[in-house]
């Protein structure tokens, strides 16, 4: 799966949660929750949604690997190399 496809899905799911935040305007290596102003329940909803979209499990222990926008794309890429 191409990185651009992963990013498109991530953007789509983030947009559902934080529709007023433009993903083009965020700092990609800063704290994801702060950049998108999402709280712990929003983040849990994001994890649930991404798990369904990529058909993967996102363990809580891996949350530190998803702490920025760029890190999340890398993580999702590593978890789902064989999809599509």
């Amino acid at each position: 799966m191409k990185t651009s496809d992963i990013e498109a899905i991530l953007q789509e799911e983030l947009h559902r949660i934080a529709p007023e935040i433009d993903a083009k305007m965020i700092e990609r290596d800063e704290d994801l929750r702060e950049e998108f102003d999402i709280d712990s329940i929003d983040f849990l909803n994001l994890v649930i949604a991404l798990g369904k979209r990529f058909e993967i499990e996102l363990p809580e222990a891996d949350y530190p690997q998803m702490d920025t926008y760029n890190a999340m794309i890398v993580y999702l890429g590593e978890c789902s190399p064989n999809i599509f």
Partner: protein
Amino acid sequence: MSEFLMPSLGADMEAGTLVEWLVKPGEQVNHGDTIAVVETQKGAIEIEVFVDGTLDKYLVEIGKKVPVGKPLATILQAGETGAEAPQAVSKPEKAEPVSEPAPILPPKLSAETVPTAASISEERVRITPVARRLAEQSDIDLAALRDKGTGPAGAVTLQDVEALIGAQPSTTKPSEMTGMRQAIAAAMSRSKREIPHYYLAHTVDVSKAEAFIADLNATCPPEDRLLLGAVFIKAVAKAVEKYPEFNGYYTEGHFQHSKVVNIGMVINIRGGGLVAPAIHNMENLSLGETMSAMHDLVARARSSGLKSSELSGSTITVSSLGSHGVETIYGVIFPPQVAIIGFGTPTERPLVIDGKLEARQSVVLTLAADHRVSDGHRGALFLSKINKFLQKPEVL
């Protein structure tokens, strides 16, 4: 015969606009049924009835702004024919005078002027709070957004409103207060004017609570995972059972203790504002049920799907600014409640454990309480009790 009244959905509410009837005259209603939808400063709220019977007739036309405490409809209880004098059935928690009462239609509406439930079900516009704010600021009539929603259950989203106004920021009026901001201003002004607050803080080790939920979550799908916030709320609910002077209302010069524990949960609304709906009967909920209730409440608060009993029923409030919040929350009590508990951001701090300095995850737990009802000594014991539960999360 009973009257179904416009309820007070909080100390800050003076009136609401009837937008939809969910039950037709002649239909059966049961205690707890939602029978109407009212537009308030906090969004569209589903209003429940607390009596069994049959809806007799509508007293108010759709679209009318109605002061708190005024009748919206009459309800016949079992065996009644409609000849009896009406009795109020949903006494508002605190009906405050409305400066300019909105006109109420006389009870004798003709059949033609009273819309039927079927014909008016299209009147309601389901809209998210952030979208509502933009619509208000942009002078967009909510009716113009009907059937344009693309969100869950057809809710109008921010993008829908932006699409309608062509995303022209120049048309907004940022200087004007939105309805929600006015509601917050009214409640908090009253709180600071009337309630002699006192404040206590206690730093609490939460490493055991975090380890407890990490352990549970390690084997759970995301849908079943717990958040630390659920543990916090449950600990407050259990502790307040032993310290009843923090659970209830101060009205008409005296404190009224509540036997049930309804925790008001402060929920941030995107783009500004907040609501604090209640999780009812917390004393009967397990930790997992508390988490489910939180999840459900946050989702509905952010899509304008709250019920009237959830907005008016809190007996104590809990505020937590989450993982990227602040060290300490100095809460403002939501009247007529008498206490608010704050949880700061969990942070690693140096704590002395068994005589040794250790880096531990901890939060600053705060209490803002009403000095007319309680004192610092009892407040300190209350915070200490919450701490004890957080050290034994398995008993929650």
